[in-house]
């Protein structure tokens, strides 16, 4: 599903942040992406989200060389990838329902087409009673669950999560990762970036460790 071959990344004329990344991620797998702060986890996630182009090497996703794709194909591919951020990045002027429905709204779907799906998903993540609440009125855990719901409402094949438990307490962190695990059981490929060791130790998923710009996979 995802294949990196000798991928390197640098910003402008700066030093190479990611070097010779070569790995393969199978469909339906769950990987933790870990490493110290500044090791390039977010940059790797942005490469996977197709919001950055590698400086060198080859990235293949869904069986296609990403560098050979035109804008429309890239956009289409991006729609198969969901993302969750540490800082949630919900739009404060939209309700929880509207935030979660946003990926479907940008595809031009009318509300009548997605209303029941969004409602069902919000119930599933435990936000059934908070649909009309604006994000500033939600707790950290509620915001993150809303962000996860927004990332999965379009049924992505790959779900990327960048430190999704960074702003919640340890107990809620475990519950959130269990939620990701549930999604993984439903067939979604998950790459979850975190540097919280207790969390990593609580689950038996393979780890991609970034260090010195290089990646190693264990487990």
């Amino acid at each position: 599903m995802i294949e990196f071959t000798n991928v390197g990344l640098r910003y402008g004329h700066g030093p190479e942040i990611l070097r010779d990344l070569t790995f393969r991620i199978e469909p339906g797998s769950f990987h933790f992406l870990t490493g110290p702060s500044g090791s390039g986890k977010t940059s790797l996630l942005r490469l996977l989200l197709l919001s950055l182009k590698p400086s060198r090497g080859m990235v293949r996703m869904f069986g296609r060389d990403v560098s050979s794709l035109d804008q429309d194909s890239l956009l289409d591919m991006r729609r198969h990838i969901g993302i969750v951020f540490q800082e949630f990045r919900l739009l404060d002027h939209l309700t929880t329902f509207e935030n979660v429905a946003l990926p479907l709204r940008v595809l031009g779907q009318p509300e009548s087409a997605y209303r029941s799906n969004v409602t069902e998903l919000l119930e599933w993540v435990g936000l059934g009673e908070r649909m009309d609440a604006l994000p500033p009125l939600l707790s950290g855990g509620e915001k993150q669950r809303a962000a996860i719901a927004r990332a999965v409402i379009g049924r992505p094949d790959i779900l990327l999560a960048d430190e999704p438990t960074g702003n919640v307490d340890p107990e809620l962190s475990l519950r959130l990762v269990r939620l990701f695990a549930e999604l993984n059981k439903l067939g979604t490929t998950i790459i979850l970036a975190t540097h919280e060791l207790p969390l990593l130790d609580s689950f038996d998923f393979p780890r991609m460790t970034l260090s010195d710009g290089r990646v190693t996979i264990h487990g």
Partner: protein
Amino acid sequence: MAEAALDESAAEAARPPAPRRATAIVPERSVAGRTLVLLIAIMTFLSGVTLGGVVLVQKSAIAWSSDVGREVTIQIRPMQGEVMESNIRTAIALAEAIPGVTEAHAISIEDSQKLLEPWLGSGLDLSQLEIPRLIVVELGDPKAVDLSLLDRDLKSVKGATLETHAAWRQQLNTMAGTLVLSGVLVLALIVLATVLAVVFATRGTMASNREIVDVLHFIGASNAFIAGEFQGRFLALGFRGGLIGGLGAVLFFFLVAGATGSLVPEQSTAQLGFLFGRFSLGLDGILGIAAVVPVIAALTAITSRMTVRRFLSQTSGL
């Protein structure tokens, strides 16, 4: 009965919420709306006034040129040994013999006196003065009349010259053309200033909405969709500003027309009316100003869309 009511309320609770009006993705307050509406209103007002002025000048010039073109004048100077009245009769006969001439008549001594009054004063007895006499020749179709033939024929009348007003008309047309061109230039500058103002406003809006743009990108929105969201917001602002400015311009012309009638002396009003058609825009002028409103609104929307697309192509990773 009570059970049925309970079932109904349970079903109601389980039902997804009714469709509601979706909140705009680009919040209204995030766009520098009031300032931009005011700026667009001012630009539309200036465009409308300029356009109205151009319409007035052009209409007056066409009317003038047409009126002046339907007449030529024969001037007969007093000559030693010539009988003026006889020469006038000959000149009239020659003029009326030219195909296309509908009528020729001499201006009476009294009328000539009135024409000279502004320069020589009233109560003057022109019978004591030897002044040239004028014959007005009215043309049915100015293009069909061979004025060179009339000019040649008049050589047989001593002291007679033909005045076709060609130089006047030429000068009038040049002046009107210059004014129209200046108006078009001013309009072009106003449009340019509007475009630049909208570009700056859009850039400011994009910068303050960077988070929204980023989120839309992450969730798979196309650049066209994002640009459309901003364009819609700017189109609404453009329409609002355009409508205010357009109405202001039409009101301005009504007020000026009213003020000209009540503040300026009657004689001057008549002269102004002759020159500018009493500041009356007419239906075509009002329609012209009305057309400025959607043009400005569309210009605002297109400019903002292009600015957004440019911004997105520079910032998007794709």
